[in-house]
Structures are given as structure tokens and as C-alpha cells.
């Protein structure tokens, strides 16, 4: 008996979902598109929420920023649940092996006392500020509008929790559980931390979700991450605290990656209309001043005489970044 093998090409009957065909045309869609576009609930809300009777459940009016198409605020990293968790799992593995190495070889004991103290005084209490970032971004994903931005904000929110956990582990590695109690006391009562705590707590009660996005993701992160994980980090390395630099590697890497996403959101929103641009620019100006006030004492503690110069560098870079995004600051 003879068997003939032949190939049969089976054409799929449909390329993708109808709601994606409406937006992108009839062609296969990427996983990111499938999980992000045209799925914001827009109608059939039934009742208005009792806790906010002026708005429907998902309402465009909850921010001053207005967009014709909210799906324009896409994530350049194209994170959907799968790709996001895969990317972070890989980074988590790397971080884990760094912590293992620092613990196994006792590298923390080799850090000069002065550098260690700076890390305990500055980095460890920052975990409470990270928790503020977690809350703010979770708020955006709850009350924001447009699945492409709310989805990314939820990831961002979880990332902040991750950073807080790394900072906690740094405290544990450097000085055991007492480091965390001490950091909490500093955060609650230490004079150094009160301006930062006030600022973070003020962000917790904002109602406009895009304002939180600007204040937290653009301004606070845009100023504090370069200060702590770039400038202060080089100080650690230069003075024998390489182990601390190793343990903060994720934060530096993460800040670079997420800044691209934040930039893309601000750029698109600012280009949408002169009104948006004005509102965004005002927010940046308003929060830049308070954030700098909050960071100044911390920078002085961390960098001593160099603090003023470094803060100025950070500010110049930040202003250049905002100008590139089309903001008038």
C-alpha cells in the first residue's frame, strides 16, 4: 500500500476579534493588542456608584486631562500579563542570586560603617515612600480610564511593592530586623524624613488620577531615582559599598525601563491639546518644587557637601526630559 503525504494549508476563518478589527483592520493581532485594546467598559453601568453619584463607574471626568482616544496612551514595552510577569520573573531571579551571593560571602560585613549607615538611613526608610507609590498607582488602575494605561499602572503599582521588598531585604542584610524598626521610627518621627512623608501622604489623598500619575511617576520618581540609584549609587561604589550597589541593581534598571513608559504617556497626553499641556506643565511645576524640598535633607545626609551640586544635576536632567516631552516647565 502506498501512502501519499500532502500538506494542507488551513486558513483561519477569522484573524482576530471583531473589536480589534474595528481598530487595527482585519489582520492577526498581537497578544498585547488582544489584552489591551477596545475593552474598556463604556456603557451599561446600571447604577451610579453610591460613593460617587456624580460619575459613572468608569468615568472620563475623573481627571482634568482629556483625550479623544484614551487608547493612544499605549505602553511602549507592550506589557500584558504574560510578558510582564516573564520580564519581572527574570529580574527577580537575577536579584535573588545577588542577595544570595552577598549573604553567602558575607559581603555586607566588608562595607565601611559610614556607607552602611547611609544605606540604613536613606534607602531603608524609602520603602515607606515606595508603598505610597504602590497606593497611588493602584488608585489609578481603579479609577482611571482606558485599559491601556490602567493596566500598566497596576503593573507599576506591583513593581513599587517589589522595590519596597528589595529595600526591606537590604535592611535585613545590613542590620537584621532592627533596621526595619529603626527605619519606621525615622519615617514616622525623624526630622530628616518629615518633608518626604508629608509629600507622600499628600499624594495619597489626591483625587485626580492623572495628577497622581504626574506627581508620583514623573516627578517623584524622575527626581528621586536618579538621585538615589544613580548618583548615590556611584558614591557607594566609589567608597567600598559595592555590595549595596549590587543590591539596588533592580531599581536602577527598572527606573530606566519604566521612564520610557512614563515619557510615552506624558508625551501623547501633552501633544493631544494645549489644555492638556498647560495642566500637565502646571502639575510638574507644582510637584517639582515640593519634591525637591522633600529630597534636599535626604540628599544632604547622603552626599554631604556634594548634595547641592548633585541635586542641581538631577534637576537639570529632569527639566531637559520634561522639555523633550513637550511640557513648558
Amino acid at each position: 500500500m502506498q501512502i501519499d503525504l500532502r500538506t494542507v494549508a488551513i486558513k483561519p476563518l477569522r484573524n482576530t476579534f471583531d473589536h480589534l478589527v474595528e481598530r487595527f483592520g482585519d489582520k492577526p493581532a498581537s497578544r498585547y493588542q488582544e489584552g489591551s485594546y477596545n475593552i474598556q467598559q463604556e456603557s451599561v453601568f446600571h447604577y451610579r456608584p453610591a460613593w460617587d453619584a456624580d460619575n459613572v463607574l468608569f468615568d472620563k471626568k475623573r481627571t482634568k486631562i482629556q483625550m479623544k482616544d484614551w487608547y493612544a496612551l499605549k505602553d511602549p514595552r507592550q506589557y500584558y500579563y504574560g510578558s510582564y510577569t516573564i520580564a519581572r520573573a527574570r529580574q527577580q531571579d537575577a536579584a535573588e542570586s545577588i542577595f544570595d551571593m552577598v549573604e553567602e560571602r558575607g559581603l555586607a560585613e566588608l562595607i565601611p560603617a559610614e556607607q552602611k549607615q547611609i544605606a540604613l538611613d536613606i534607602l531603608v526608610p524609602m520603602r515607606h515612600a515606595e508603598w505610597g507609590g504602590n497606593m497611588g498607582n493602584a488608585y489609578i488602575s481603579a479609577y482611571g480610564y482606558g485599559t491601556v494605561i490602567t493596566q500598566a499602572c497596576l503593573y507599576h503599582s506591583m513593581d513599587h511593592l517589589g522595590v519596597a521588598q528589595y529595600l526591606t531585604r537590604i535592611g535585613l542584610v545590613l542590620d537584621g530586623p532592627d533596621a526595619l524598626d529603626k527605619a519606621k521610627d525615622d519615617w514616622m518621627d525623624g526630622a530628616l524624613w518629615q518633608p518626604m512623608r508629608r509629600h507622600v501622604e499628600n499624594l495619597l489623598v489626591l483625587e485626580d488620577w492623572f495628577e497622581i500619575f504626574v506627581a508620583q511617576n514623573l516627578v517623584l520618581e524622575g527626581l528621586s531615582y536618579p538621585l538615589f540609584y544613580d548618583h548615590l549609587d556611584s558614591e557607594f561604589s566609589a567608597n567600598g559599598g559595592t555590595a549595596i550597589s549590587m543590591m539596588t541593581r533592580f531599581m536602577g534598571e527598572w527606573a530606566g525601563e519604566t521612564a520610557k513608559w512614563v515619557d510615552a504617556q506624558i508625551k501623547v497626553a501633552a501633544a493631544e491639546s494645549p489644555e492638556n499641556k498647560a495642566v500637565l506643565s502646571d502639575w510638574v511645576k507644582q510637584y517639582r518644587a515640593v519634591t525637591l524640598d522633600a529630597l534636599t535633607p535626604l540628599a544632604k545626609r547622603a552626599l554631604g557637601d556634594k548634595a547641592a551640586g548633585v541635586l542641581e544635576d538631577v534637576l537639570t536632567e529632569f527639566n531637559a526630559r520634561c522639555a523633550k516631552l513637550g511640557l513648558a516647565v
Partner: protein
Amino acid sequence: MSTVFIAFQTNEDTRPIVESILADNPHASLEEQPAMVKINAEDQLVIRRESIEERIGRDFDLQELQVNLITISGHLDEDDDTFTLSWKN
């Protein structure tokens, strides 16, 4: 005139790659076969890292092409930014 070609497996990973090759090489033609896409082009075919990165939203190393590559024909000129097939050498 002679033709160069490149063939990939048809999957999630290669779709943006094929898309960017077709965008960068307007003279190229697509041949869809079961589980394989073949791109034919007269004389030359250029694959650019930048246009792939634009579509996938992350850094891309051109050597990642090899994972889903089935076959190529043509002399290959490869650097960090481009992957070029031609008969010019």
C-alpha cells in the same frame, strides 16, 4: 536579476519580524505556506533591528532571528543593526 529569500516559522514571535521586513522592503513578496512564511525579494533584502524593536517594544538582538529561522538564500552581511541578504558579494 536574482532572488534572495528568507523563511521563518509562522508564530507569535515572527509576525512582527515579517511585518517589519515587508515594511522595510517594499519590493519583497510574501509567500504563506503551512506553518512557514517565506519572503522573496529581487537582489536584496534588508532586516533592520530598529524596525523590529519599534514593533515589539523591547530591545532585540538580530541573532534572535535564528530561533525561528528555517532557511535563507543569498550572501549574508550581518552587523548589530542590519541583516542583509544579497548576491552582490
